[in-house]
């Protein structure tokens, strides 16, 4: 059986130099949602990613748009650079949409890997269970704060169309259901390390 040939993809945005910036990807997502111009994108970004991602400044959007355009992920809509104050609007290319989809899939695997990594790293405290319990206490506190801050009624907030409020409903339910798994895990991990601590205290 012959080895599969290595294909080097030299198209912009692919191959050996993948785009790393979470802000760039988020901006691409906003352009996919709806074509926009620079300042409008900055405003939409602040609203959509509050508490998750932060822009260093409005001007950074223009830098990011240049990058996305260079990588052929977005393109300027012809005829929008008109008037005294031209506001060129950008839309996603099919290349940009496909890259964004691939990015989400890769990110999903990364998130799962990160959870496993945290669990494995916590196990390093098998000989120091009190320190693990401190970490678990803080993890639990962070999860409870997150749970308390999650808005109610997101799932019932249907809006005018199925797409209306979709992002907030998806984010809200993701937070709530992720916690549905995390809290029992925290409870379990606490029991494990408490048992270790109790065993070590016995003569």
């Amino acid at each position, binding site marked *: 059986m012959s080895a599969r040939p290595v294909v080097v993809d030299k198209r912009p945005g692919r191959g050996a130099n993948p785009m790393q910036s979470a802000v760039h990807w988020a901006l691409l997502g906003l352009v996919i949602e709806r074509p926009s111009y620079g300042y409008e994108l900055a405003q939409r970004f602040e609203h959509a990613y509050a508490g998750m991602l932060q822009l260093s400044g409005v001007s950074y959007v223009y830098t990011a748009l240049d990058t996305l355009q260079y990588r052929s992920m977005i393109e300027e809509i012809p005829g929008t650079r008109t008037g005294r104050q031209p506001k060129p609007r950008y839309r996603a290319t099919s290349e940009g949409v496909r890259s964004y989809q691939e990015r989400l899939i890769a990110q999903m695997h990364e998130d799962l890997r990160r959870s496993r990594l945290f669990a494995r790293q916590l196990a390093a405290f098998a*000989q*120091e269970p*009190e*320190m693990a319990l*401190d970490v678990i*206490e*803080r993890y*639990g*506190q962070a999860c*409870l*704060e997150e*749970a*308390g801050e*999650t*808005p*109610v*009624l*997101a*799932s*019932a907030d249907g809006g005018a169309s199925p797409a209306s409020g979709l992002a907030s409903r998806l984010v809200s*339910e993701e937070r*709530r*259901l992720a*916690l*549905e798994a*995390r*809290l*029992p895990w*925290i*409870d379990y991990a*606490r*029991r494990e390390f*408490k048992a270790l601590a109790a065993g070590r205290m016995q003569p």
Partner: protein
Amino acid sequence: MSLLQLEHVSKCYGRVSERVALRDVSLRMEPGEMVVVWGMRRSGRSTLLRIASGVETPDAGVVRFEGRDLYARHGERLGDGIGYCRRTFASSEGQLVLDHLIIGLLARGLALPQAAGRARAALERVGIGYCAALRPAQLDCAEAVRAAIARALTFAPKLLLIDEPTIGVDLLARDGILTLLRSLAQEGIAILASTGESPSLSGGRALMLSEGELHGGRPRELATVVPLRRSA
């Protein structure tokens, strides 16, 4: 002075194999505050609510409601300021949902017209005025929860306790119940709820019960010097 204050409350069950339901639990609640306690089964969350309501006595510790020791209130009734939501409707208490709300008020000496008026208002308040003439068995899960809340509201509580308000309730109805509880809190009623479903923690102060211990307050400071114990 807090509305509800639990200080170092402990509770055990069983004589042969003693099970610790609550271990040194302290909690303060203010008027209009919503606190939701998450816990696995047998974590002690129902015991916490029963003790906070005065239904059950702790083995150790103190429970104060409006500054007074709850278990020193000789001759006072539970309904005086504290409402405990029961989701069961005993057939001996009436046939219709409205009957179940009225009977407790009649027992307290209210005349029937006043009791009926207050009961109808409570059902309207929780959004199920249309259920007054139904039998409890005809209610769906979410309506039964709302009816239980309405029954507690007829006594105009300052503190409302509810065990697992969203268990068995579908997703959209769940948010409706949480919104109702939030709105009651915004009117000044303190809400203490327990849950085994983390989505029900939304919108309140979330705490966790694990093996009878309450977690979720400010974590203790990390030790600055931790002597590592390494085996040679």
